[in-house]
């Protein structure tokens, strides 16, 4: 079982990500929003393990069912 999510990004790094997205976080929600972002960023490393061949292609566009039968 993995440890609790964590990220190496600093508070400033996270704030910069919000600014880059055009999000101006209300001051009284800044701490909670940053904490939620930190939790989310903390799980990203799980997504970047080596993929098996079976995982490719990602198959996000499927047209087969649209062919008239």
């Amino acid at each position, binding site marked *: *079982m*993995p440890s609790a999510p964590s990220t190496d990004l600093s508070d400033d790094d*996270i704030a910069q*990500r*919000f600014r880059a*997205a*055009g*999000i*101006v*976080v*209300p001051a009284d*929600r800044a*701490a*909670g*929003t940053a*904490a*939620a*972002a930190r*939790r*989310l*960023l903390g*799980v*990203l490393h*799980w*997504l*970047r*393990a080596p*993929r*098996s061949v*079976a*995982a*490719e292609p*990602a*198959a*996000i566009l499927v047209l087969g*069912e649209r062919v008239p039968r």
Partner: protein
Amino acid sequence: MSLAGPLHELSIADAGRALRAGEVTSLALTEVALDRIAALNPALHAFVLTLPERAREDAARADAAFARGIDAGPLQGIPYALKDIYGTAGIRTTCHSSLLHDHVPTADCAVEEKLAAGGGVLLGKLGTFEFAIGGPSFDLPFPPARNPWNLNHFTGGSSSGSAAAVAAGMVRMAMGSDTGGSIRGPAALCGTVGLKPTYGRVSRRGVFPLAYSLDHCGPLSWSVEDAALTLQVVAGHDPLDPASADIAVPDCAAALGQGLEGLRIGYTRRFYIDNPFLTPDATRALDAAAERLADLGAVVDEVDIPDFALFDACAQVIMFAEAYAIHETDLKTRPMAYGRYAYQRIASGAVLSAADLVQAQRLRRELTDAVHGGALRSHDALLTPTSLSTAAPFSDFGPDAARWGGMLTNPFNVTGSPALALPIGFGTDGLPLGAQIVGRPFDEATVLRIGSAFEAAAGVSGHRPPLALPAAS
């Protein structure tokens, strides 16, 4: 037949039999429900809107149909309610948010179309976490629903009002939605049944989305049979929902009562046993559930699925990326119209990159293949926890932390598998504990069959929350 017990405890199946035998009217069932809502809702806050006139009209129409020999199906004359993200024509649909406080859709959602066509009686709209994600918030237009087993505890979410209403006997069936466990979580914490059908089985058209590729619609009910009967009515292909599957809906209720002989059930004990949120009560109840399924004739053995951390990462990234995309404009232009919890959680999606989302989608395929091609190839179904503990008290939720641990539901939003939340016992605090039965895609019949056999043998559903509800502190 004679009616045994109070009317509000009659199942859909029993109420249906009584309606067809002329032993009770839909109007009588409706008045009992409305009275119970009036008595209990001030403490439970399950309903955010009741519709007594509409309900009486629906009931009178159902009674007239019975009198003319018209039978539109198992929900004819049965009162029900909808989570307040289900769009209803001419009826306020708020998503429990100030943003949509005065929103009145012009069309019914697909599920409501089917329930109305099936002769159901709409009692009202039910509370939710804001936009089906926030948390048990006190800064919204309506207070959060409270757990009927103990008013000082939350219900789980986000189908919070749906679970509270069913557990309190206000209604036999309430529709919920499930993006990461929002049907099964509150069902487990309130001691009800909750069915997340296969992705694509029930149309989401007209239901406010949380995350398009993870959202499911399904019922919460007191019994497995009632979930099966409801699925029969609300399932089916809808070309206007791009995820809807054009696959025939079997008679799931017909599979109930067949017993478990010949079924192989995988118990995912290693999946949860080292989870830091696991309580001894949950371990005992889950092990006992596995033993009971074996006693009932199933072959039960331990089976492995990928680590929960992988599912959780995949589910969270996809959910928050999609939710952020849906809410981006309002988050930027009207941030204070959101409650604190929903804002903080949805806005967090802004920090994700496009590459994060693509990686999550790649992992999703891998995880789905691992479950469907692995554990669910060798087994007919899986037994796995819904929650690893009982419901937390409201006092556990600080201003910046709406997330709670110990829910193991989102793996099956990732895979899209049908999953049935079942009550399996009670903790030492007297609150319910739950497990889920997970099946192969579009095999709700087997999932419900297993759930029904367990339910009949375990007797957990014979226990109801106390009628004299204690005062909240």
